[in-house]
């Protein structure tokens, strides 16, 4: 009878552990994803609430079309739902999630026949070519904007960045990824990522400087 009681206790503990919900507010992203993979739908709600804005803007900045962004954004999350069982917390959850988003964007542009996100500034020797890129129309001095216009100008400036720089900048800004994480995600070296970020920041800072001057 002792053996039977031990077996019943093990079964009960196993069942309890499987059904035990996680504390959603304090849980890490990977814990929420594992909980969702084990059937806790509320864990997905929390996870989606945390990352929906960043993923959406990341997709939107790359495609520039809200309709297309909606479609791709939905595909990213559907893909996350579909592959939840194979999720393993070997890396940061945001790295995993933004990899899904980036792959979806790449697939989309490949299907359209465009080669985007390829680096044109991975080398310091490309600096002149980056600098030679046409400036945004918003760079014109006569542009005067209010707050709304400032936002539009910022977005336009981001859209005007070379895709690789924009990709690195958005991964850092929206995803909160580190240099090494961005390097891992994009498949390039950390120095290349650092260079892309430097170019993107300098470009945007110059945009902001002009805008700030315009507001004065």
């Amino acid at each position, binding site marked *: *009878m002792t*053996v*039977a*009681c031990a*077996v*019943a206790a093990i*079964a009960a503990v*196993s069942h309890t552990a499987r059904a035990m919900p996680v504390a959603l507010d304090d849980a890490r992203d990977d814990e929420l994803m594992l909980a*969702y993979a084990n*059937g*806790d*739908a509320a864990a*997905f*709600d929390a996870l*989606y609430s945390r990352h*929906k*804005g960043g993923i*959406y*803007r990341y997709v*939107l900045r790359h495609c520039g079309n*809200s309709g297309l962004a*909606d479609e791709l*954004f*939905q595909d990213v*999350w*559907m893909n996350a*739902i*579909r592959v*939840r069982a194979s999720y393993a917390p070997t890396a940061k959850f945001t790295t995993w999630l933004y990899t899904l988003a980036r792959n979806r964007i790449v697939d989309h542009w490949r299907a359209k026949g465009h080669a985007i996100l390829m680096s044109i500034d991975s080398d310091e020797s490309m600096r002149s070519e980056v600098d030679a890129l046409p400036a945004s129309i918003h760079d014109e001095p006569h542009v005067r904007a209010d*707050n709304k216009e*400032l*936002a539009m100008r*910022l*977005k336009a400036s*981001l859209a005007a960045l070379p895709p690789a720089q924009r990709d690195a900048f958005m991964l*850092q*800004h929206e995803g909160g990824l*580190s*240099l*090494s994480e961005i390097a891992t995600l994009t498949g390039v070296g950390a120095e290349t990522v*650092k260079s892309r*970020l*430097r170019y993107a*920041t*300098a470009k*945007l*800072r110059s945009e*902001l400087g002009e805008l700030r001057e315009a507001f004065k």
Partner: protein
Amino acid sequence: MNPEREPFDPTLEALLRKHSDEMPSSDIDAAILAAAHRAVQSAPRAAEKAAEATSPWRWWMPLAAAATIGAIAIGVFQLMPEEPEPTTATVVSDTPSSAVAVPAPNIPPPPAASMNKDKAEAPRGKVRADRAAPAQAPKSNNERAAAPEPFPARERDAGVRESVGSAANRVEAESKTQTAEQDNAAGALMRREAPRAPAPAIAKQSAASADAQVASPEQWIARIRALLADGKSEDAARELIAFRAAYPDADARLPAELHVWAATVKR
């Protein structure tokens, strides 16, 4: 500045935070969340059922294991040999002195088939007898004999006969059991006749005793007169001796004409 965040412009970051706030529509949110909930409420359940079908620890398996262990434990207890207890001695000591228990060797051996059965049932019978013994203690001999007892049938029959207390029945029971014992031997007939075939002298005494029990003094006297008339004086003397043995005052009962002759017969 964090080298991992370098190059990082806080002003640029703040501006972007303030002015880059696009969010997916509520319709998209609802569609994605609904899909996520459906995924864990439908497909995962099917997967869990499939997993349960092959899982070695389905919910009923601990119960089945417990039931199996319990059944095995009960079976082992049933099959365990019990300690030998002095059942027979107890029963024999309970019987009164007038009703002597039939000795074990006199019990005829059962057939081979029933012997195995008796062997298998014997321990349980003994246990039941011991448990019932205290309750039977105040009963009378006849009640004890009539009450169901855990003995084998033949032993039980013998016990009933003993409880009647009749010597004749006892002898009959003994002869029956002895007869049953000697079914296969040629000497059985001799052994069966043995108690009925005494030595000649003893037989005569027994016959005289038997006659003494049935014959009256007048009959003794008539028989002695007839023997003397026939000239069988020796036979007449033996009859007188038997008559004297049966009746101590036999000489006083004799008629006067036999007194002289009776005086010649030694006592």
